[in-house]
């Protein structure tokens, strides 16, 4: 039983990465109708920016949490301005192919310069060590990741669902022409939204840098699972993707305990089941 508690907690930790990443995807899909396949690559870039800040500029983890999402977010906005915006109104497939291509290029460039085995990034001193919870030894850093990402997820949800700005955004998605008639700069809003989604990915990248290696392929390994999370939660649903992210982390954690061989397929089995029973996802509305 003790072991089970430990696995549940570990599942929550992984779930927080799934939640942060799928949230970014959901925001981008919900507001821009783009299936952002470059998300994994941008997550990786976030981790690399943190690495560069520390090793070239001597800037620590805490600043990286702020700077990396901004740097990568600006990169994302440039992508949106120069490429993605021309695909507005076209079939989803075009956006998917374009972002997939971008992901491959970005990964290829990083792999060319940094190889595949990764670079070390150590846990900040303030978060080193761990606490003995009785049923498990919880590294402080992992606990921090769960709490921090939960706060960020809820803040994002609040921003989009409960504020004036969020209301503009949702309205702009629904009927851009009408919203423009009210004097709101819709293209700029869309660019900023893409920047926000991308920034969330970069933030997840910084959070994961001390746990995993900073590797060019770190995003590629994760992105497929995250897409499954978004599909299960319902494309474009903000709260759905947060809850599904955490829930799937837990389910995956339990699988690692009961039948580890299936731990990297269980998410996809669930995805198939959900698609068969409820094709719009658990919380999704019909398109």
């Amino acid at each position, binding site marked *: 039983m003790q*072991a089970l508690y430990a696995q549940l907690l570990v*599942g929550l930790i992984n779930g927080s990465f799934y939640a942060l990443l799928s949230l970014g995807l959901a925001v981008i899909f919900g507001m821009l109708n783009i299936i952002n396949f470059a998300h994994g690559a941008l997550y990786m870039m976030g981790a690399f920016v943190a690495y560069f800040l520390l090793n070239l500029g001597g800037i620590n983890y805490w600043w990286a949490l702020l700077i990396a999402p901004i740097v990568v977010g600006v990169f994302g906005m440039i992508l949106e301005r120069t490429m993605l915006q021309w695909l507005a109104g076209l079939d989803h497939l075009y956006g998917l192919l374009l972002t997939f291509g971008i992901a491959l290029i970005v990964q290829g460039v990083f792999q060319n310069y940094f190889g*595949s*085995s990764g670079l070390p990034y150590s846990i900040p001193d303030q978060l080193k060590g761990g606490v003995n919870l009785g049923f498990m030894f919880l*590294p402080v850093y992992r606990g921090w990741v769960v709490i921090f990402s939960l706060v960020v997820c809820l803040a994002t949800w609040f921003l989009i669902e409960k504020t004036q700005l969020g209301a503009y955004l949702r309205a702009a998605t629904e009927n851009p022409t009408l919203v423009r008639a009210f004097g709101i700069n819709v293209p700029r809003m869309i660019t900023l939204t893409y920047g926000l989604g991308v920034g969330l990915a970069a933030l997840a990248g910084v959070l994961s840098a001390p*746990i995993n*290696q900073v590797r060019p*392929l770190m995003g590629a*390994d994760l992105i497929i699972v995250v897409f499954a999370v978004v599909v299960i939660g319902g494309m474009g649903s903000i709260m759905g993707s947060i809850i599904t992210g955490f829930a799937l982390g837990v389910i995956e954690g339990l699988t690692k305990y009961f039948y580890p*061989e299936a731990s990297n397929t269980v998410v996809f089995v669930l995805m198939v089941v959900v698609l068969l029973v409820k094709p719009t996802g658990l919380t999704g509305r019909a398109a």
Partner: protein
Amino acid sequence: MKNTISALLLGTAMALSVASIASADDKVVKIGVLSDQSGLYADLAGPGSTLAAQMAIEDSGLKAKGWTIDLISGDHQNKPDIGTTIARQWFDVDKVDTIVDVPNSGVALAVNNVVKEKNGVYINSGAATSDLTNAQCSPNTVHWTYDTYMLAHATGQALVKAGGDTWFFLTADYAFGAALERDTTAVVLANGGKVVGSVKHPLNTADFSSFLLQAQASKAKIIGLANAGGDTTNSIKQAAEFGIVKGGQKLAALLLFLTDVKAIGLETAQGLNFTETFYWDLNDNTRAFSKRFSEKMKSGAPPTMVQAGVYAGLMHYFKALEALGGNPHDGAKVVAKMKTIPTDDPLFGKGEVEANGRVTHDAYLFEVKKPSESKGPWDFYKLVGTVPGNQAFTPLDKSTCALLKK
């Protein structure tokens, strides 16, 4: 009459030209470096293996003796089906004679069958499974650098003798992990130890915390990492995070490469014991080679043992070609020749290619240095022991290779 003569002349000319092409063909070989070029093993093999092969071709001096040696490389992406498809295409279309490297035991065993079927030469450096020279041995295969039997015996024995008598395994869920766990278990049991449990994780796993918690709960003295590359580095890093080593359990990295230590960082990796058959800073010969090698590597990295094995394996292959004098296309014949010549190269020293295809050379027990002991960017290892070549690998009377029963 005139027509007949000219026809005869033409025929003779054609026959001559065919003959001359045939004799020129005699000294042409094509080598394919089949590796993981972009995945988790790309740094320890990959492009560095191709570079090592190029250096072997240059250093062999065969070109000056009239040989033409072509080199191509391919990416098997750690998938056995892709590996065999490339191998078949190389033999059937590109007329490749020899395949080298092939890390990833799953791919290596699959390619082993193709090379045997096509009667090519197979010099494996990257893969670990000892099955290549046991149950699945082949007259076309030479297994150069290391194998699971050697890793299990050198590292496993040393740790059990030092008091680590209960083991829990974290095993990569494919041919390599299974072979390494099997061989290490045998050593642990033979030395009076006990295996209290194991868990199989998928290849290329990012998060090991679930598995590490199970290992922690097992209370085993030693946690044996029967995995490689990125999986090993992640296991070690996260074990430190969960306080496993501080809690009194010891990690046994059964297979650790130079590039892995670089990725983990000395701070976390210090004190780990493991076995390799090559290290760049062993002696003057290895330093000289490594200097030339790292100057040509984009990352400036010195060679790993796998890359060194590609070089040494090809150098030995070239010796066999020279001894044969030409006609290098009968793979089994070339490998038979390689087995008759004792191995002796600057990187691995003296040894031999045994009848089952296993190459023997010394193996070294290393310990990762403390950050304060390291004097340069790749100064990572401290030599703590040497296992002589004739004791490091499967003894021939214990090998299950069918070639030995003739």
